[in-house]
């Protein structure tokens, strides 16, 4: 009894998950757990292996090794039971462009086996949620990106699954629509859904309860956004605004005490081990090259800085 209760605490449990395509390892011994009701962010640059991992969790791909439990069911041995418990929005836009909004909803309602007496209610719910009441009769192809995305989400949750996998749901959508979409994700989380969402927009990481950073198939950081940022404070971040950012970058990269340099807006983010001593060093290095420093100050890192720093560290380790 106690054991099953404890098992129930986790919506997703992954242990040592591996996926190989031939010699290529797309998912490399990944382990993580997602709590019920949590918004779990899955971050990483393109090609990191996020989609592959999500497709395994949805029962679409067989893992090459390890174990994945979703909603209490093993994805390798009980994919049908897994599918009943999940909603999945694939990375590609996944509705029928040549059907009307309502027809898309009706179709997915039908194939998900939503009981006929509930279909009308679920349809209204989705139309309200996606703000598509007035366009229920429009061709899906004619909707703007943000609306399409919301409709796709709506169609993926018609059967009221407790766990949602959203693979880069906001890619290619304008910032306002992205904000609106995240509001939806919050609503779903508040109503008890577990949301497993991947993105390559680093700013979206801040919205997640917990997140994992994936890089080249491996998880290189896992935790709450604030914790990850705190860990990074062991090395500090400075903002540098100079007359020639690119030259500055070349001048600083790989120098002692400087852990990483990344372009950020018009300036640079420089992560350093010891701000006090490195400040002088930076001034000297740039001064030698005649680069004028307009601003050089300590800042608190954003999620993006955390990830840039971690990925740079990974690359340093690799080389």
């Amino acid at each position, binding site marked *: 009894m106690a054991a099953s209760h404890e098992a129930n605490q986790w919506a997703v449990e992954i242990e040592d998950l591996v996926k190989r395509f031939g010699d290529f390892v797309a998912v490399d011994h990944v382990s993580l757990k997602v709590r019920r009701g949590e918004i779990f962010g899955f971050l990483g640059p393109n090609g990191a292996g996020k989609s592959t991992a999500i*497709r395994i969790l*949805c*029962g*679409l791909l*067989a893992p090459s090794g390890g174990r994945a439990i979703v909603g209490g069911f093993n994805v390798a041995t009980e994919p*049908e039971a897994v*599918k*009943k418990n*999940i*909603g*999945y929005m*694939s*990375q*590609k*836009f*996944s*509705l*029928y*462009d*040549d*059907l009307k909004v309502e*027809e898309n909803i009706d*179709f*997915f309602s*039908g*194939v*998900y*086996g939503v009981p006929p007496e509930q279909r009308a209610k679920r349809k209204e719910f989705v139309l309200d949620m996606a703000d598509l009441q007035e366009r229920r009769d429009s061709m899906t192809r004619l909707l703007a990106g943000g609306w399409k995305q919301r409709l796709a989400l709506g*169609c*993926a949750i018609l059967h009221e699954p407790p766990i949602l996998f959203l693979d880069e749901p906001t890619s290619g959508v304008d910032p306002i629509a992205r904000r609106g979409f995240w509001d939806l994700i919050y609503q779903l989380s508040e109503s008890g859904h577990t949301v497993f969402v991947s993105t390559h927009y680093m700013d979206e990481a801040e919205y997640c309860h917990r997140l994992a950073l994936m890089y080249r198939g491996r998880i290189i950081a896992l935790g709450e956004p604030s914790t990850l940022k705190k860990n990074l404070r062991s090395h500090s971040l400075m903002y540098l605004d100079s007359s020639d950012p690119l030259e500055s970058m070349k001048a600083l990269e790989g120098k002692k005490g400087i852990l990483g340099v990344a372009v950020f807006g018009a300036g640079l983010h420089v992560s350093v081990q010891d701000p006090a001593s490195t400040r002088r060093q930076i001034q000297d290095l740039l001064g030698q090259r005649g680069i004028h420093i307009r601003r050089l100050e300590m800042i608190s890192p954003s999620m993006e800085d955390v990830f840039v720093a971690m990925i740079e560290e990974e690359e340093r380790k690799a080389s």
Partner: protein
Amino acid sequence: MWHRIREIVRKEFYQALREPRMRLLLVLPPVIQLIVFGYAVNLDVENSRVAWMDQDHTPASRELRAAFQGSRYFQITNTLTQESEGRQLLDQGKVQAMVRVLPGFSRDILGGQTAAVEILVEGSNSNTAAIVSSYATQVVSAYANQVLARQQAIRLVGASTSAGIPISLRLPSLTVNSRVWFNPSLRSRNYFVPGVVVNIIALITIMLTAMSIVREKEIGTMEQLMVTPIRPVELVLGKVLPFALVGLLEVILVTAAALLVFRIPFRGSGFLLLGCSILFLLTTLGAGLFISTISQTQQQAMMASFLFFMPAFMLSGFTFPIHNMPVAVQYLTYANPLRYFVEIVRGIFLKGIGISILWPQMLTLTAIGLAVLGSSSLRFRKRLE
């Protein structure tokens, strides 16, 4: 299970009927093929040049010659005494056929025996050759019938005078000849238009099935479908049933056009035609399904459909008679479902034959169909997993 299949079928119909490209694909091929094979391809032979060799030298043989002369299909350009002259003319292409009336022709035909006429046809164009030889046979047997009718009239007179001889005395086997020729009005259109049914249903169902499945892969909805409770077998049925219906509809439309526009005779059973079409559809839908598993884009699917269809079309006996093919190729045609369906369709249209004669073809089609559809479904399933 069925409600999910119904959802997919409904969706396919919405999509097929809305997409202009799809609509075009439903209408254009049948219209083009009907025009090409109904109007443009005219293999009807008129005024073929014939070399004549009479070894009988009787009034009857001269009458036969007059019958050839009088037919609009032939003109006698050479009269020969040596067979070798005739072969030379044939080789040079100066005549298309040589007719040799063998000694004893008059005796045989008046005696009610099979007439001894030899027809040599220049065979470089197998179609024309088949048609020329069929026309020549036709003329000969028409003449024979004419002779018989005359004789019968004589006998009727004789019977009434010297009562006691049965009237049906010697109605000989000659009349059977003209019934074997399944195209008695001698129009190549009769031969081709029914075959269009075969081409259309093959081309359209292969292509539409393959493309509609590949499109789901292309736009990413296939993955979405795979997380729904839809099982592969349901997806397969939901995908092929709409195109089976479309195929049957095309059969009906092309048949209607054949009857109403081209005045092709339809001597057999319409239900049998539809039934056999269903058997044939097993193969084409299976082929479409198979193509969908080897194609990544709709373009590839379309190319692959043509690559599959063209040889099947060539080896179906639709345009090129199978008995003129090299023996090895003839064996190959036994594996070609189009071959059997062409035989069935022509048989039903022109000869009016039924299951009692067509069952071997029907059985073979069923066997090929189940094998193709079964293995394609398995492969499709594997690919999804």
